[in-house]
């Protein structure tokens, strides 16, 4: 059986979040298994499954050159703008 990664939307309006993985013969069975394994306690209202082999991942060995340069670029955060009061949670 193939390995699938599972993404659950907790309630409408929120994003699908990665919750884990499981085995299934095809995507339909993967959805059913995800429903039974990951949403039995009201965890979700929508499920995506993706074959794990279809995911391209960044290489952890390159993490320094990929991600460290962002650390000292504080000016890239939009924290220097005065916000209107109505915009609470930007």
């Amino acid at each position, binding site marked *: *059986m193939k390995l699938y990664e599972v993404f659950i939307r907790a309630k409408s309006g929120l994003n699908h979040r990665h919750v884990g993985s*499981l085995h299934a*013969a095809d995507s339909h*069975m993967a959805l*059913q*298994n995800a429903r*039974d*394994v990951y949403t*039995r306690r009201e965890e979700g209202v929508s499920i995506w499954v993706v074959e794990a082999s279809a995911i391209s991942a960044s290489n952890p060995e390159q993490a320094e050159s990929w991600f460290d340069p962002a650390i000292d670029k504080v000016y890239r955060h939009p924290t220097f703008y005065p916000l209107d009061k109505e915009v609470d949670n930007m």
Partner: protein
Amino acid sequence: MNEAAIYHYLLRLADTSLTQSQRLAEWCGHGPFLEEDIALTNVALDLLGHAKMLYEQAAEISEQQLSADDLAFLRDVSEFKNPLLTELPRGNFAFTILKQYFVDQFHVLLYSALRHSMYAPLAHIAEKALKEVNYHLERSHGWCLRLSLSTEQAKMKIQEALDDLYFYTPELFESDAYLDDLQAQQIIPDLTQLQADWQQSVDVLLAECQLNVPKKGWLATGGLRGEHSEHLGYMLAEMQFLQRAYPGCQW
């Protein structure tokens, strides 16, 4: 309304769900793979929930002071009213799945019809249970196709299961004087019609699965009258042990 007949029928449905649930629960820790293990026991819990609602309603209208637990755990074999189908040992995975499909198809048609029961508590229970059995059917229906159309070995196992199970299914639709009365009062659907609808759906699936439908076999009967196979006694001995050994014990 004929309360004795309703009580009898509530127990018929509750005992069917409880025994089916218990057999599924036996797969806990023994499923063919982890995800399926969880899915099977999930269905078992759903069915246990349906049995609980039905027993609670039966307890409410019973003439004695009874609880749902009394009905599930303190009645003996001859008082159980489930069809022999649901007390059969769980067998292999193909056997479990095909049996589950037969019961799921029955439940979906039954609860769809019972939503319009003239007896409101039953209509209410049917409404709640229907959502769950629809999902059960989707699963078992899919598995029957998968097993039948995959390897030679899987096909052989589900064919054997069909040969063993097929003539246990008509008992699901058996009637008696009480049930005749309830059908006449439109408290339960016409069981002959229900059987015809069930047979039609089953015929379609079995043809799709390219399985050979057995022509002749022993027609199971007796559950409604409390006449059971030897299997039910062993099942109850295990299921009821705690309440028998520690009367009134609670979690």
